[in-house]
């Protein structure tokens, strides 16, 4: 008898990597930020995250069952979406808010297009946009200051604490970006006051607090440092690549430096762009959402264009748009452009001479 051995196309060696390993590593990379959320806002952060993840996973399984396709909830992608939904929610939210967000994200954001790999928009961002449109107050107010647990840092933002008492209440109770936004309408508080507040935003204490996480906001955005630890891990594992986050953040830095001041071009302190980078959802968005592989360009030049586009839109929304924060909308808008970007940024083939 003659033995017959397996045949297949080359290569016959394979790196040990799989879709689940990529997704679970992303989930792992989000853990420092979740721990920071628990640390600053209490256990409610964890509970809301669990609700969101459970809703995402159950929705995925249910729809895949209906579609009669293999159930892939163990690949970790729904878990990541759930975590990201929870990260966009503040701890005073009711339990059903993240649940609805996750259901929408998985059902409409992902499965309706055919599941992982086929979706046009980042599912978590689409879920968040749905929540903001449906429950704007829940999503953008009632934000808790950081919990007593975190009192080893000074509570609330130092700079803002020392503001004169006649600054309208709306400013002191809002997030830093809300303050920055309100400032741009100087008729509300007078230009002298605006100047003072602006200085307090771009003072190094404020920025340190933003960086470490001692600031009101949603669960996942609280600590830039924790997010950066996760991002560094993903970059080290070659799961995210530098082009999108760096071009995104770099664009925000440059544009807020040029246009961020309240007395015309280049009137901002050099610390103001730093304030913009570490506040709001920019770090989370740039490293974990804009880099979503399914919804970002595959070409190298395309990734830079995509990142810059996200940066421009974010700054436009923050400085002149109707919302204090524009990270999620700018990424969603850029998601639409991905096929176009890919088409026009095909790399030059090795040895290719272009006329």
């Amino acid at each position, binding site marked *: 008898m*003659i*033995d*017959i*051995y*397996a*045949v*297949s*196309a*080359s*290569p*016959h*060696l*394979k*790196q040990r*990597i*799989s*879709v689940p*390993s*990529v997704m679970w590593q992303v989930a792992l990379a989000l853990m420092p930020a979740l721990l920071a959320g628990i640390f600053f806002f209490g256990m409610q952060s964890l509970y809301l995250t669990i609700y969101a993840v459970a809703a995402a996973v159950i929705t995925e399984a249910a729809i895949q069952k209906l579609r009669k396709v293999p159930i892939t909830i163990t690949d970790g992608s729904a878990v990541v979406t759930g975590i990201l939904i929870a990260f966009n929610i503040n701890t005073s939210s009711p339990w059903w808010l993240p649940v609805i967000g996750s259901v929408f994200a998985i059902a409409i954001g992902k499965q309706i297009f055919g*599941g*992982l*790999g*086929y979706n046009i928009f980042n599912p978590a961002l689409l879920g968040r946009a749905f929540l903001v449109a449906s429950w704007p107050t829940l999503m953008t107010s009632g934000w808790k200051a950081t919990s007593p647990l975190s009192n080893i840092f000074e509570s609330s933002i130092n700079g803002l604490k020392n503001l004169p008492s006649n600054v309208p209440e709306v400013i002191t109770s809002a997030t830093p970006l809300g303050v920055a936004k309100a400032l741009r309408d100087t008729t509300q508080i007078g230009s002298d006051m605006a100047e003072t507040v602006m200085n307090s935003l771009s003072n190094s204490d404020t920025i340190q607090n933003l960086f470490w996480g001692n600031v009101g906001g949603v669960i996942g955005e609280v600590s830039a440092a924790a997010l950066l630890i996760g991002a560094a891990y993903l970059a080290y594992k*070659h*799961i995210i*690549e530098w082009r999108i986050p760096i071009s995104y953040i770099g664009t925000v830095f440059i544009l807020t430096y040029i246009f961020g001041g309240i007395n015309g071009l280049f009137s901002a302190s050099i610390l103001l762009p730093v304030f913009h980078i570490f506040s709001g959802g920019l770090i989370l968005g740039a490293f974990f959402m804009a880099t979503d*592989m*399914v*919804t*970002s*360009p*595959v*070409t*190298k030049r395309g*990734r830079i264009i995509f990142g810059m586009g996200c940066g421009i839109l974010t700054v436009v929304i923050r400085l002149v748009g109707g919302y204090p924060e524009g990270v999620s909308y700018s990424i969603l808008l850029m998601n639409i452009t991905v096929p176009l970007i*890919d088409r026009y940024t*095909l*790399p*030059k*083939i*090795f*040895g*290719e*001479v272009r006329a």
Partner: protein
Amino acid sequence: MGIKSFPGGIHPHDFKHFSKNKAIEKIPLPKKVVIPISQHIGAPSKPIVKVGDEVLTGQCIAEPGGFVSIPMHASISGKITKIDEFNHPTGILATGIEITGDEQDKWIELENDENYFDLSADEMKKRIADAGICGMGGAGFPTHVKLSPPADKPIDTIILNGVECEPYLTADYRIMLERADDIISGLKIFMKIVDAKTGIIGIEANKPDAIKIFRKLVKKDKNIKVVGLKLKYPQGAEKQLIYAATKRKVPNKGGLPMEVGVVVQNVGTAIAVYEAVRYKRPLIDRIITVSGKIVKEPKNIKARIGTLSSDLLDFCGGTTEEIGKVISGGPMMGFAIPFLDTPMTKGSSGLLLFNRKEAHKDDESTCLRCARCVDICPMNLVPSLIANSVRYDDYDLAEKYGVMDCMKCGSCAYVCPSHIKLIQWIDIGKIKINEKNVKK
């Protein structure tokens, strides 16, 4: 001299430890060999013997089928017992000439032309062509054709490829350690034939002992350089090697190295050329690495062309586990062969044996668009988009994406988290586009 390289590429585990310290061993004369008439790129050779003929070792048994072709020689003495379809190392059935040996190894007469270096370029080329030499790194392009560039494409540099970037393979490494002198003689013959001013020996940095040996040997030759290359796959791919060594980029869309004044030859080919020019010795044997975790005693073997894989494996003591897959060549670009009665050819650099687990391939899942393949493609292509256009039968789009520029190094499939069989899709695309072009 710094460590040179090319953009892109991957770092697979090299698995060379199985065989790298094993000195070349000669396998006992096989009882039977099968000489396929197509072991090279170009027209198959034409058999000039018939069943029943007695042949001597080194006797020509098939003539070249055209200019881009080579003759074949009997690799053992004995009787022609069959001219038929046999298993071929590319995994197909192909015509071959079976010789049953007489165990005498009676040779044709060889010469020892000590003044071989005084021969003219044309005489040298004729001896190379008569010896039936084709590239021994794998692709198998007839060597005399490579050495015959048109007059308007002057060659100023010969690069010897001693990179051996495929995991497992150590055949080239061993000949560099054991036969460095002959390799340099071969290089000088190449340089003389095309009148090249510079000779470069490119060796990957994981072979520092080989680099040292060559540096010492060429100390007095001002026009020969030894270049240490970064450990990276596919460092030994022709275009990538040329770029790393000279910073010249071979034009895409079928451009040849001669367009940038370079000819690349494998170190094994250099030895064959030296033996052909000096001794008029036809190419009837080569060094092959037999390796794999399950091979009892992995070896670098000097074996006659046409030796069956089963004989090679027996010489290594067989396997310790059930065989799952047999690979002819390296694990990245080699062919999986279904039968062990497949003969080795002039381009066979390795015979690898995998167990069932190593042979296992995961099913494809959806492309995540993670772009890992884009980031490492040494040809700067977008493999995922090519595979997708082939999957949906859009071959024009695949061609626009540069599918024909792919050298099938396999790096993309190696890094793909979705286990997409990118090389398989790309191969289908290439075949369909070639068919379409032939019809035109």
